[in-house]
């Protein structure tokens, strides 16, 4: 069964460093998303990406965040200068149509 794949599963980075989280969505999907879950809290929407551009973003998704689909298969989330409060589980999701939503297994980001 096709699945969304995220790498790495756990990333530890120093405050102020840049980090790139990688995702390989399901191949025929058209809509791509990043979500964040701080430990013990609910899952929050960060950004959606459709037709090679950002279609919607939340207030959390400020100038330190960016997304790319560099080669037609990967979908990346870059955090330019990490802060302690960026420590969270980051989920990539993709869907072929609006009614679906398939999640990857998540990347745990720890900022020290």
């Amino acid at each position: 069964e096709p699945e969304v794949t995220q790498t790495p599963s756990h990333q530890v980075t120093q405050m102020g460093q840049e980090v790139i989280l990688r995702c390989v969505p399901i191949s025929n999907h058209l809509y791509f998303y990043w979500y964040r879950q701080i430990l013990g809290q609910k899952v929050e929407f960060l950004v959606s990406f459709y037709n090679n551009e950002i279609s919607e973003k939340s207030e959390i998704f400020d100038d330190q965040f960016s997304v790319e689909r560099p080669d037609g298969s990967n979908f990346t989330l870059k955090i330019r200068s990490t802060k302690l409060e960026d420590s969270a589980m980051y989920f990539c999701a993709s869907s072929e149509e609006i009614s679906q939503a398939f999640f990857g297994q998540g990347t745990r980001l720890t900022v020290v």
Partner: protein
Amino acid sequence: AQTVTQSQPEMSVQEAETVTLSCTYDTSESNYYLFWYKQPPSRQMILVIRQEAYKQQNATENRFSVNFQKAAKSFSLKISDSQLGDTAMYFCAFKGAGGTSYGKLTFGQGTILTVHP
């Protein structure tokens, strides 16, 4: 903006019993989708069940079923014959289907379900 509320932070049930998790939502959209996701300790998000708002029939998936009350904006999850593997955090989620929607999910706060042997 849509909101999703899960009023039960924690629930527990005995193995083989039935449990119902509550969810209410608020939206001005007429067409949308509702989901229940399971998050076990591994923290992966696993889709349990999906409901289209335009369908009156409640969705079912094996031991999982929903009670969708559109007028009341209520979407509860019933788990029958609970198993130890059902122990997890359960999230209710809303996804709009309007013309300007690109399908973002809005999640509730989650309910921790513990199944006791």
